[in-house]
C-alpha cells in the first residue's frame, strides 16, 4: 500500500489558498441532500458539526456524554495559540509554523503545520464573535501570555478555563444548528463500528447507552472527532470516559493508524497519592510562566520546602536550560523531572514529585496578580491536596496528557478509507512527536471550523456514491458483530471487575512505554499485554444486562480495545530506533541526556495497517520532507 498525502505543489505560503480554490464545491441547493455523521462533540467534532449544519448539510452528531457541552476539550486550561502578533514581539505565521515543526521534533508534516499557523488567526476572530470572554487589557484589547516552549506572547486565554469557553462557543453554535433542524444530536450514544460499503465509509453502528439498543446510521461521509487514547495508561489527565473505541474500530475496518507511540507527558500534574486513584489532575503549564521548578540539592532531604535555603535547592531547568528556563517544552520538562526523582531527589511522600514554587512571583507581583492569573488553579490544587500553594510550593509530577499519534489522514484530513475524515486529537497530522502548549485547542478548531468543511465538499462533489441506507447488509453484519461482542462480555462472568484490568494495563504501559522506553522493556511488554488480554477475555466480570444503562459494559468494551491498541503502541515504539519528542528510547540519547533523533532512517510517519486478529500489522511509511524548517538538534539551552 502506498500513502498519498495529497499535498499540493508550490510554495508553502500559498498552498492552502490555492488548494481551497481547487477544491470542488457542493451547490447550496444540493447540500441538504447529503448526510454527514460527526462522532464526537468536542472542539473538533462540535465545531465541524456546527459549521457543516450552517452550510446546509444534514448532520447527525454523536457523543457518549449526556450533553455535547461536556466533551473533554472543556478541561483545557491554559490557552490557544494564534500568530496575531498583537504585541509586536516578533511573532508571525512563519514563526508559529517554525516553532510547531521544531517543537514536534521534526516528525510532523510541514504543509499541515503551515496551514494550522495560518488559520490560527481566524480562530480567534471567530471565537471573539461568538462571545468567548477572552481576557482583555484595560483598553479593551485582547490580552496574551507566553506559554511553554514559546518565546513570544501568542496565547489567548479565558482565565484558566480557555478550553471550556471555546467549547461552549462551539457548543452554542451547535445548539443553534440543532434548533434550526440542521443537526440531529444523539447524546449518550457510543459508536461501536464503522460501516464500509464498496470501500467507502457509509455509516456507523452505535449503542444507545440508556436503552442498550444497537442502531445503524447511514451517511455519505463520516467524521471522527473522538479525541486521543491517553486513557490506555489508566491514570491520565483525560476524562474517565475518553476512549479509543471509535478510532480503533475504524482501524480494524481499514483506516491506518499513524505513530501510535507518540504520546505526550505533561510535566505539571498533581502527583499520585494511592492505589484507588482514578485520574490525574493537570495544573496548567501556564503556571510555569511564574512558578519556578526545583528539588533539594541533597538526596533524601525531607525538610519542609520553606525551610530549605536557596543555596540548597536545585532549580534544575533554569540551571540546564538558561535561555528557556522553566519554559522548556513539555517533553524536556517531564524527562528532567523524572531524572531528578530517579536520582532520589523527588519530593512528597512517594518521592515522585518536584516543587513548583511561586514565592518569588508572589514577592515580585503581589498576591492579587497571581490570584488573577491562576486563582482557579490554586483553588483546585488546594481542593485536591488540602495544601495552600500561596503558602508552600505545589508538588507536581508528569502524567500522560495527550496523544500525538492517531488515524493517518492526508492533507484533506481524510483517512485511508474514502469518506472517513478524522479531525482533532484523533488524527496524527500536526504535532509530530511532541505538541506545544496551547496548540491542541488551535488544531481542534482549525480542523472543525476551517479545514474539514472545505475538503469534505470536494469529496462529496467529486465522488459518485451509491444510494445506501441503514437497511444495507453491511449494517446488518456490523450490528450482529456489535451485539455478539456485547453478549460475549456479559457472558464471561469471571471474577475481576473491568477497572482492575485497566489498572494493570496502565501500570505496564506507563512503566515500559511511558516517559522512557527501551527495546528490552518493550519486548517484555509485548509478551505481557497478550497475556493480560487473554485473562481479560476469560476472567472479566460485567454485571447487569445489555439492554439498560450499564457503565461496566461501556468500560469493558473500551478496555478491550485499549488492550489491543497498547500492543500497537509497543510495536511502533520498538520499531522506531531513535528518540524524538515524547518518544524517548533510552538507547538513543546525547551525552547530555537529550533525545537523539535519527533523521537518516526515521524521518517518516509510521502508519500501521490492520491485517486481522492475531496477525502482525503491516507498517507503511509516509516519508517526511523538510523544505523550510531544517531539522536540527532541538536546543533550549
Amino acid at each position, binding site marked *: 500500500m502506498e500513502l498519498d498525502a495529497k499535498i499540493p505543489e508550490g510554495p508553502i505560503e500559498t498552498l492552502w489558498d490555492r488548494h481551497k480554490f481547487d477544491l470542488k464545491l457542493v451547490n447550496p441547493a444540493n447540500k441538504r441532500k447529503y448526510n454527514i455523521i460527526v462522532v464526537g462533540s468536542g472542539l473538533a467534532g462540535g465545531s465541524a458539526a*456546527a459549521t457543516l449544519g*450552517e452550510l446546509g448539510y444534514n448532520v447527525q452528531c454523536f457523543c457518549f*456524554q*449526556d*450533553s*455535547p*457541552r*461536556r466533551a*473533554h476539550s*472543556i478541561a483545557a486550561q491554559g490557552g490557544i495559540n494564534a500568530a*496575531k502578533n498583537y504585541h509586536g514581539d516578533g511573532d508571525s505565521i512563519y514563526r508559529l509554523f517554525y516553532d510547531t515543526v521544531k517543537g514536534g521534533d521534526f516528525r510532523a508534516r510541514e504543509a499541515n503545520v503551515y496551514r494550522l499557523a495560518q488559520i490560527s488567526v*481566524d480562530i*480567534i*476572530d*471567530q*471565537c*471573539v*464573535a*461568538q*462571545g468567548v*470572554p*477572552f481576557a*482583555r487589557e*484595560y*483598553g479593551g484589547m*485582547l490580552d496574551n501570555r507566553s506559554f511553554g516552549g514559546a518565546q513570544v506572547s501568542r496565547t*489567548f486565554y*479565558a*482565565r484558566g*478555563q480557555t478550553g*471550556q469557553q471555546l467549547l461552549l462557543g462551539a457548543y*452554542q*453554535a451547535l*445548539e*443553534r444548528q440543532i*434548533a434550526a433542524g440542521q443537526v440531529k444530536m444523539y*447524546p449518550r450514544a457510543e459508536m461501536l463500528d464503522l460501516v464500509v460499503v464498496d470501500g467507502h465509509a457509509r455509516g456507523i453502528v452505535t449503542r444507545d447507552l*440508556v436503552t442498550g439498543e444497537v442502531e445503524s446510521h447511514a451517511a455519505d461521509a463520516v467524521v471522527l472527532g473522538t479525541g486521543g487514547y491517553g486513557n490506555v495508561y489508566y491514570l491520565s489527565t483525560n*476524562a*474517565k470516559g475518553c476512549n479509543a473505541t471509535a478510532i480503533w474500530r475504524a482501524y480494524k475496518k481499514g483506516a491506518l493508524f499513524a505513530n501510535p507511540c507518540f504520546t505526550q507527558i505533561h510535566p505539571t500534574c498533581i502527583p499520585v497519592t*494511592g492505589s*484507588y*486513584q482514578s*485520574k490525574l489532575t*493537570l495544573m496548567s503549564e501556564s503556571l510555569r510562566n511564574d512558578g519556578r521548578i526545583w528539588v533539594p540539592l541533597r538526596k533524601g532531604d525531607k525538610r519542609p520546602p520553606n525551610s530549605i535555603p536557596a543555596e540548597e535547592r536545585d532549580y534544575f531547568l533554569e540551571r540546564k536550560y538558561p535561555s528557556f528556563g522553566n519554559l522548556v517544552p513539555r517533553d524536556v520538562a517531564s524527562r528532567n523531572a523524572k531524572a531528578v526523582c530517579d536520582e532520589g531527589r523527588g519530593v512528597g511522600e512517594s518521592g515522585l514529585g518536584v516543587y513548583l514554587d511561586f514565592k518569588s512571583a508572589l514577592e515580585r507581583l503581589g498576591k492579587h496578580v497571581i490570584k488573577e492569573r491562576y486563582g482557579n488553579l490554586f*483553588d483546585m490544587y488546594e*481542593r*485536591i491536596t*488540602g495544601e495552600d500553594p500561596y503558602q508552600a510550593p505545589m508538588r507536581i509530577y508528569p502524567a500522560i496528557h495527550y496523544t500525538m499519534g492517531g488515524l493517518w489522514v492526508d492533507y484533506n484530513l481524510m483517512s485511508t478509507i474514502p469518506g472517513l475524515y478524522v479531525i482533532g486529537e484523533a488524527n496524527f497530522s500536526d504535532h509530530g512527536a511532541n505538541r506545544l502548549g496551547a496548540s491542541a485547542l488551535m488544531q481542534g478548531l482549525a480542523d472543525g*471550523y*476551517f479545514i474539514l468543511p472545505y475538503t469534505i465538499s470536494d469529496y462529496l462533489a467529486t465522488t459518485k456514491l451509491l444510494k445506501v441506507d441503514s437497511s444495507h447488509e453491511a449494517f446488518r453484519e456490523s450490528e450482529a458483530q456489535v451485539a455478539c461482542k456485547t453478549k460475549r462480555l456479559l457472558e464471561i462472568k469471571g471474577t475481576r*471487575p473491568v*477497572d*482492575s484490568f485497566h489498572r494493570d494495563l496502565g501500570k505496564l504501559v506507563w512503566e515500559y512505554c511511558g516517559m522512557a522506553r527501551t527495546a528490552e522493556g518493550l519486548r517484555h511488554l509485548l509478551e505481557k499485554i497478550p497475556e493480560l488480554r487473554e485473562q481479560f477475555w476469560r476472567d472479566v*466480570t460485567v*454485571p*447487569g444486562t445489555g439492554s*439498560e*444503562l450499564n*457503565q461496566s459494559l461501556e468500560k469493558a468494551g473500551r478496555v478491550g480495545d485499549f488492550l489491543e491498541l497498547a500492543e500497537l503502541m509497543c510495536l511502533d515504539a520498538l520499531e522506531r530506533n531513535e528518540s524524538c519528542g515524547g518518544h524517548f528510547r533510552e538507547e538513543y540519547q546525547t551525552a547530555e541526556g537529550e533525545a537523539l533523533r535519527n533523521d537518516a532512517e526515521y524521518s517518516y510517519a509510521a502508519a500501521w495497517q490492520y491485517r486481522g486478529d492475531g496477525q502482525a500489522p503491516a507498517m507503511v511509511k509516509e516519508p517526511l520532507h523538510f523544505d523550510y524548517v531544517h531539522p536540527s538538534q532541538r536546543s533550549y539551552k
Partner: protein
Amino acid sequence: MNLTLHIWRQRNASEKGRMVRYEVPEVNPEMSFLEMLDVLNEGLIAKGDEPVAFDHDCREGICGMCGFMINGTAHGPRRGTTVCQLHMRYFKDGDVLYLEPWRARAFPIVKDLVVDRSAFDRIIAAGGFISAPTGSAPDGNSILVPKEAADLSMDAAACIGCGACVAMCPNAAAALFTGAKIMHLGALPQGQPERYSRVTAMVAQASHELFGSCTNIGECEAVCPKEIRLEAIARMNRDFLKAAVSGRD
C-alpha cells in the same frame, strides 16, 4: 474511616426506587468522593451485585457531568466544589451519608443517581448563543471589550451546567443556569444585537421544560460549584422586563 451510605437505587425511569444501605470500611481521607464510590462499586461487582450508576467524566470539576445530593446538599458540604473534587478528608469516621439524585420534574431519573438534563441543552438551543456564522468574523481586536465587561461575562460563563442550582431550589427553577448564559452574552458588545430576543426565548423555553419560577431564595447560589452569583438572575429579570415592556420580541 468507616462510613455508612444510604444510596438511592432505581433501575430505570419507570420502576420504583428505594434507599439502600451500604457500609464502606477503611476509607482513605485522600480519596475523592467518587473514588470512594469506585471502591464501593468494585466491591459490589466482585460480589456479583450491580454497581451504583452515577454520572462523571472529567473528575476535575469542569465538565459538569457529576452531581448528586449528599445529605440534602447538592454536591455535598464544601462550597464551590463539585462532588468529583470533594475529598474524603472533609468527612469523619462514622458519618452517615444519604446520596440522592437531583430531584426536579424537568430532570427525569435515568438510573440510580443519573438524571436526564437535556432540558438545559434545549434552553441553550432556544437562544443561548450569538449568531456568528463560521468565517464571518472581523479581526478580534476590532471589537473592544472593556476589561470589566469581559470579567463580568467570564464570571457567568464559568457555569458548567451541572444542574445543582435546579436540584437545590425548592421551586426547581433553572433561573441561575438561564441567567448565567444571559449575563455571559449580555455583558459583551457582541451579545447586544440578540440580547432581548435571547432572554425572551430562553425564559420561555425554561418554563416550557417545567422548571419552576424563581422566588429569590438563593439556595442555587449557595451550592453553585462555580459560585455564580444571584446577580445573574437579576440581570436576566431586568432584560426580560425590558424586552416585555418595550415590545421588542
